[in-house]
């Protein structure tokens, strides 16, 4: 026996090349001992002179995909043996962690570009630091046999790389080469280089279906406006922005890029990042009316090689029928995308799990997640202090932007973006995801949580699970999700939650969506709200912004203006429906207020062709200036001198119309002033709760906070009080399940 150290490493440390990293590090420091995986992470027994510096290096030199949460060292007596070895995993649940898919690393990239390398031009190169993970996983533990790489038997060369601790591919499960790995082809093809033929289709203005990591994309040349229009027409997608893929140089040529944005684009997660357009040198059809474009860097060798061949940015939009989930199977693609695509760039590695591209942006307040999927899932979030003894819980989220959340062993796992649950295939995907996550993570929930809305499909599903159901008010869930992602302790005290959202069912049976809630994980009170107005035609009002403008204008005594602005609509019936309450419930949604203001400023009674279109238009339109700021502050003063619980909109609309017509203010100024007004109105109410000692901080959540301008102005209006915002999980309904889960957890641990 000798004296050495036992080092416990916690965090994302399995399946990321951590043990070979430790092995190499131990060699460097001349240590003897062993390293192994166990259910808590990685365990090291080391003996030698320099164990302290060794422990420091674990943190500072960790492999790219690792996330080291803790390195805990204690002295120990053991028999180190002669060298340092990688020992067998120990304990049930070891090797059960899985990291998100990761973009091609620079070492692999060098190889595929090197004519002398055996992986030159190979579309499926990867290593421990990069490559497919969650999208190829069928079951845990994460071994090749449990992935869609199982049919590809390793050649001798790949096998020796896989077996050598010093190699970058040591235990890299998806390791592959042209000899033994997946193959690429194009359909219909001429028998030449698939990339060459694919590039030809794109150069001709054709639509190319590309099988990627988490599903098929439809690609067209992003510099060719006719090709883009063709794709819009074939996809029946008139206006929703298309995502783009390009090299960093291409992105920089067309968009403004900050260092933070470059870093985000280059993360292993390789999300789509919304970036401000530089000029109008790319066709406007890419994102009509938007000031931003969504860009991602190539994230597989296949994408790199395709871009290298075509040498121009590509539209990369998800390959699906309108509203349906992205296609993942080859036959499915031939069947469904046949009508859209002129050719298919295909391969024979199956996609085990559909994962959309994640969508994020950098705001003045940091990172913002709009859609959480590939590259981010299944990353876990440690639960805040106080939730240690929480039983396993599964939460089923909302109706739109559905995602499931698991709570287990003090961690929350927010699942991938699924979509809108009335869509039959999305619903199947939701049920599949529930089974899938339960099986992968060995989850059998003792409690399930869902939205309060009885007609959300996910709420009905929760009732079938045979365990106690905790229904959670929609905006309370938004608040709690933001608390949890910010690590707010279970008993950290109450906060003021400014929840600006689309629609959520309130505890009083009314439709909410613009609230100041005072509360925490345990409960809430509704302390302020937007003045309600009828939602004419229920969900129809979410599709047609003019309906919301009509009720706000009528309410403000501006019916004459509604008559003028929306003359082509059946206003009489709409007004009668509002008056009689026929399918027109009272609604305090700020999302609908955005719709209303957008319809007035845009002078349009057109329906939205995608969710959030009007609000995005308004944000894109808003132009900051001193005058605009002053105008918004002035509006706020006129309406908010002694703020009561109800935020009036009458004066807002009177000023808006007056300043637009007689005041001669420009629409960009008015759009900005509206954001300013809104931020002040809600901030005032939240601030009061903090000043009165009722709340300790302010939380900003709900779908409207995808609007970076609103977020920024609200944070500004809150001055120096502590503000919690979303930076890791979506402020929209994609984060709802996390909030539901922690509220159910709070209930369980307080019992």
């Amino acid at each position, binding site marked *: 026996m000798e004296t050495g150290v036992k080092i416990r490493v916690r965090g994302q440390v399995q399946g990321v090349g951590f043990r070979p990293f430790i092995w190499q590090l131990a060699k460097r420091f001349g240590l003897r001992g062993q390293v192994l995986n166990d259910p808590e992470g990685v365990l090291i027994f080391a003996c030698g002179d320099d164990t302290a510096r060794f422990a420091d290096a674990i943190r500072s030199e960790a492999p790219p995909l690792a996330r080291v949460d803790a390195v805990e060292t204690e002295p120990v007596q053991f028999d180190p043996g002669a060298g340092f070895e990688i020992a067998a995993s120990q304990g049930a649940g070891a090797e059960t962690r899985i990291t998100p898919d990761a973009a091609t690393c620079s070492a692999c990239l060098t190889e595929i570009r090197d004519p002398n390398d055996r992986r030159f031009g190979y579309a499926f190169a990867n290593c421990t630091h990069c490559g497919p993970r969650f999208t190829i996983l069928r079951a845990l533990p994460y071994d090749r046999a449990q992935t869609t790489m199982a049919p590809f038997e390793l050649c001798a060369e790949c096998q020796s790389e896989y077996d050598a601790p010093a190699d970058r591919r040591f235990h890299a499960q998806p390791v592959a080469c042209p000899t033994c790995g997946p193959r690429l082809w194009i359909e219909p093809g001429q028998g030449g280089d698939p990339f060459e033929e694919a590039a030809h289709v794109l150069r001709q203005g054709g639509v190319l279906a590309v099988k990627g990591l988490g599903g098929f994309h439809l690609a067209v040349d992003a510099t060719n406006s006719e090709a883009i229009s063709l794709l819009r027409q074939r996809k*029946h997608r008139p206006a929703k922005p298309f995502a783009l893929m390009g090299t960093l140089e291409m992105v920089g040529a067309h968009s403004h890029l900050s260092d933070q944005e470059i870093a985000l684009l280059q993360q292993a997660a390789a999300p789509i990042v919304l970036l401000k357009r530089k000029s109008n040198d790319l066709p406007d059809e890419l994102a009509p009316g938007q000031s931003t474009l969504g860009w991602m860097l190539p994230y597989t060798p296949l994408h790199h090689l395709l871009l290298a061949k075509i040498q121009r940015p590509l539209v990369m939009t998800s390959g699906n*029928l*309108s*509203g*349906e989930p992205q296609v993942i199977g080859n036959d499915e693609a031939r069947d469904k995308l046949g009508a859209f695509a002129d050719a298919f760039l295909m391969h024979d590695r199956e996609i085990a799990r559909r994962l959309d591209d994640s969508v994020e942006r950098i705001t003045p307040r940091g990172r913002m997640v709009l859609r959480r999927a590939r590259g981010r899932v299944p990353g876990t979030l440690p639960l805040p202090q106080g939730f240690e003894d929480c039983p396993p819980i599964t939460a089923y989220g*909302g*109706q*739109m*932007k559905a995602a499931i959340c698991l709570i287990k062993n003090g961690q929350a796992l927010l699942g991938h973006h699924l979509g809108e649950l*009335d*869509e*039959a*295939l999305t*619903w*199947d995907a939701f049920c599949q995801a529930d089974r899938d996550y339960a099986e992968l993570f060995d989850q059998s929930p003792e409690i399930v949580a869902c939205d309060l*809305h*009885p*007609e*959300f*499909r996910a709420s009905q599903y929760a009732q079938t699970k045979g365990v106690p159901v905790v229904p959670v008010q*929609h905006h309370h869930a938004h608040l709690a999700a933001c608390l949890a992602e910010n690590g707010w302790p279970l008993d950290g005290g109450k906060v003021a939650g400014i929840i600006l*959202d*689309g*629609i*959520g*069912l309130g505890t009083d049976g009314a*439709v909410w*969506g613009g609230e100041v809630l005072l509360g925490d994980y345990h409960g809430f009170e509704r302390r302020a709200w937007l003045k309600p107005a009828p*939602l*004419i*035609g*229920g*969900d*129809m*009002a*979410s*599709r047609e912004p003019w309906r919301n403008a009509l009720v706000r204008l009528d309410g403000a005594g501006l019916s004459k203006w509604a008559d003028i602005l929306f003359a082509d609509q*059946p206003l*009489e*019936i*709409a007004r*009668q*429906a509002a008056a*009689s309450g*026929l*399918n027109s*419930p009272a*609604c305090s949604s700020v*999302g609908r207020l955005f719709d209303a203001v957008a319809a007035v400023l845009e002078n349009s009674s057109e329906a939205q062709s995608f*969710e959030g279109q009007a609000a995005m238009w308004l944000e894109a339109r808003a132009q900051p200036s001193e005058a605009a700021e002053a105008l918004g502050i002035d509006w706020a003063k006129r309406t908010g001198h002694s703020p009561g619980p109800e935020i009036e909109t009458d004066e807002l609309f009177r000023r808006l119309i007056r300043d637009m017509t007689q005041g001669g203010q420009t629409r960009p100024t008015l759009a900005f002033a509206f954001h300013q007004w809104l931020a002040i109105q809600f901030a005032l109410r939240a601030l009061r709760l903090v000043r009165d000692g009722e709340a300790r901080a302010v939380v900003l959540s709900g*779908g409207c906070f995808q609007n970076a301008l609103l977020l920024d102005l609200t944070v500004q209006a809150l001055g120096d009080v502590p503000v919690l915002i979303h930076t890791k999980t979506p402020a*929209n*309904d994609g984060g709802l399940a996390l909030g539901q889960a922690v509220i159910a957890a709070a209930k369980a641990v307080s019992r």
Partner: protein
Amino acid sequence: LAHGGGGKAMRDLIDTVFTSVFAPESREDQARLSEAALQEPGARLAFTTDSFVVDPVEFPGGDIGKIAVCGTVNDLAVGGARPLWLSAAFIIEEGTEVALLRRIVASMKAEADKAGVKIVTGDTKVVGRGMADKVFVTTAGVGVIPPGRNLLAENIRAGDVVLVNGKLGDHGAAILAARGDMALSSEVTSDCAGLGHLVEAVLAAAPGVRAARDATRGGVASVLNELAEAAGLSIEIDETNLPLRKEVKGMCEILGLDPLYLANEGTLALVVPEDQAEAALAAMRALPEGRDACVIGKVLDGTPGRVTMRTLFGGARIVDMLVGEQLPRIC
């Protein structure tokens, strides 16, 4: 009309308004019916009942009396029965005009004659103001299912075709328009009609018909769900093929209502083997209440009990049974 206690005034009312129209020759309180109709070996008796409330009681295309006869006749017909006899019971709110009652009774008589059924027994009660809304009607019906006829949702097979006899949602739309608090076009009239003859004609032309349902409350969506559920198969309908009147479609759009859930009073859904669909359609189209008959969907070997609608651009949306009042869900 005064609240009667069963005295002479009441007797007079019953005699003059009801009995004299429905069964002038009857002097007894019960119907005495010949069993001749049941003599055919293998024939089965069908017996059904329904209560009817509608506001307003008179509307474009019908009134509560017509619905009360058609509803029960159609219940029998979609089960494959030939309707023979009806009973009719009335709960009348004090103060209701006698003239209104006479109109309702006349329309019941006319509809019964058209359907070839007799209203053979009935009852009348008058209740205090506010305890009923003008008049409520309950009818029960007896019919005979001829031997060998067996319409059952379990008979449905994947590959079958789903037909309807006409436009969807006319009744629901007409009622909404007739309520009068909306400036809705009143050009839509209720589809209220008896479908006995139509079912007979279809069964003669397409004897392989698997099942039929009348799509009343809860609309076509609800009966399709019932059929899919009972058959253990899925049904897919096509948005582009939905037979909707322009006015109804427009009304649904403005009010945010789904025409698949609007009530009908003379619309049925039929499931037919594919090779008999044309014959069934032709038979329906030859009759006025089947003039707009068409295919709306097909039966698939999909998720049992699921009804989906293929939308304009190719996605498939789940069409549920109507649960309650539809609350907005778009966030």
